[in-house]
């Protein structure tokens, strides 16, 4: 794995956005060659999305030939509810860029047959393949909604949320527990493992213990992000605070490699360079 450590949240967001930008631009997507991107929600990736929007506004990157696949969505929440992941993606990303709506895929939590919806989504992912899957990590080490105990070879499916998660989410639903969705549709650990490349964004001290469990302890279904120790191309992008539970030796080692990591984002490529 690569562990990329930046001083603080904004720098980490920017590094991640630069990496995604370089990957897409250098891929040179076109009408017959789409770049497939897996996307997360939550507060962690907001800075990264803002930066990507900036790069789009300045003309350095286009999402015209990019297909996106989101990791998860609540079950039973109206699609235009302000807390749905559809709303999140529209407001924080899609409405600011030039992505073709037909290429933006998000699980439908209101599908009449949830099982079929998950299977169809999994099938879509399989047939397209994901070039880069961007994800986050929960304080309990989960990726997407693969809560502790989820199989490390799981696929897209319906998951019931843990009580902790429901309570944590209540703040978005007027602190009314009865209004919080209890089920979600989520990609599985195995689904994300199939991606050609994975990038996990982890910022903040409250994620530090999860990061420690994910990369310094063994592969364990109680901390599902640990599965990526067995993925050939994973990058963890984090800020200083997220490294607080790691061994000093680990942090020093990877900080020492920053000059190598930075070659991935410098030089920064732009669509403008490839106009011809």
């Amino acid at each position: 794995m690569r562990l990329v450590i930046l001083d603080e949240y904004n720098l980490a967001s920017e590094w991640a956005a630069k990496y995604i930008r370089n990957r897409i631009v250098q891929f040179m997507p076109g009408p017959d060659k789409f770049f497939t991107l897996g996307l997360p929600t939550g507060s962690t990736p907001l800075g990264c999305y803002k930066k990507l929007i900036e790069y789009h506004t300045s003309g350095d990157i286009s999402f015209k030939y990019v297909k996106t696949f989101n990791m998860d969505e609540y079950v039973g929440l109206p699609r235009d509810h302000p807390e749905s992941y559809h709303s999140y993606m529209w407001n924080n990303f899609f409405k600011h860029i030039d992505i073709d709506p037909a290429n933006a895929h998000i699980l439908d939590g209101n599908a009449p047959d949830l099982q079929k919806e998950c299977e169809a989504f999994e099938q879509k992912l399989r047939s397209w393949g994901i070039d880069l899957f961007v994800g986050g990590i929960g304080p309990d080490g989960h990726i997407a909604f693969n809560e502790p105990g989820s199989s490390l070879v799981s696929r897209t499916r319906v998951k019931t949320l843990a009580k902790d998660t429901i309570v944590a989410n209540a703040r978005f639903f007027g602190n009314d527990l009865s209004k919080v969705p209890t089920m979600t549709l989520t990609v599985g650990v195995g689904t994300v493992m199939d991606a050609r490349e994975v990038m996990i964004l982890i910022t903040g001290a409250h994620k530090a213990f999860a990061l420690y469990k994910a990369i310094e302890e063994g592969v364990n279904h109680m901390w599902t992000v640990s599965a990526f120790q067995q993925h050939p191309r994973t990058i963890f992008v984090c800020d200083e605070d997220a490294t607080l539970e790691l061994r000093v030796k680990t942090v020093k080692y990877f900080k020492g490699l920053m000059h190598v990591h930075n070659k991935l984002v410098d030089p920064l490529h732009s669509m403008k360079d490839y106009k011809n």
Partner: protein
Amino acid sequence: MPSNKSVSDAPITQFINCRILKEQELQSEDLWVREGTILNPERLFFDEKGYADTQIDCQGSIIAPGFIDVQINGGYGIDFSLATDNVKGGVSLVAKKILAHGVTSFCPTLVTSPPYIYHKVLPGISVQNGGAEGAGILGVHLEGPFISQEKKGAHPEQCLRSFQTGGFQDLLDTYGSLDNVALVTLAPELPRSQEVIRELACRGVTVSLGHSVSNLSQAEEAVQQGATFITHLFNAMLPFHHRDPGIVGLLTSDQLPRTLCTHGMIADGIHTNPAALRIAHRAHPTGLVLVTDAIPAMGLPPGRHTLGQQVIEIQGLNAYVAGTKTLCGSIATMDMCVRHFLQASGCTVEAALEAASLHPAQLLGVSDRKGTLNYGSDADFVFLDDSLNVRATYIAGEQVWKK
């Protein structure tokens, strides 16, 4: 990228680089329009997988809902209270001219007149949509003749009437028909006004109190019967008194049902002192409706002109009953009123814009499709610069006026 067109073939326009008035604030959002109404872009994206056919760069303009003027007596030489042979033509001329002021809907107003005037003029004015030909008509505003003699203002005394004898029938006989009438101003202290107000309200006509010497309890009674507006607050009514606030007291009365009174204000810098504007705004900010009360001379050069049955004289920005110092209406345009209100009351830009759009729409019960930029509303809006000067006017998504 052409739009998906799975739901509709109509072209979609996206207005970018603008700030739109939404949910009481100016938001940096794009405005989407299709088939003359405001489109929900999120639904378009996810349901139809569609996107814009055309993008229009608004260059940082503020986009506000089109202004709605519920009290305008004419303009550019046209007098709505005059029984000409071409009532329709006259109204259309004004409708077209006021597009330049950001007005997209209005209520042609008739002042106190003899019955034959109403019978001749009213059939010539009908509720209609706006467009390139001019602002839309939401209905006629009949200001008088059932008003107080002491507070007639510029209205001709000999034409004042009461409904003492026949109640509502007297009103119907005077006007002839209420078919295209949106708003009636009357004085609630007149005997039998309660039944008249009730009957008007039942028929969906908005009732306003004005040109009156009523006290607070008479006014409250009128509101309980269904009146919902005060015509040009402070003007042509008893002044506020701390032991009997009169009609002005409705602003903060505790005797009224939830659907409270709104009040019209002429913010032309002449009819109301800025301090009075501020008092009204602070006492009841969500009820303030800006009106021009513009007279036929609006848009014309200084001199003598006709209003209803009387002659008026313009001196600078003031219009008086000829030979007196009685104000008889203003010649300020709607956008001037918005700017003046903003500056005089110290309110927010959003509040000033809502006073000219959302509040009049709420008054007339049309806020589901006018007066807002909510999804599904009619795409009537104005582009404004930061000083609230009108840059362009749109009706049903089409540009109908440009600076």
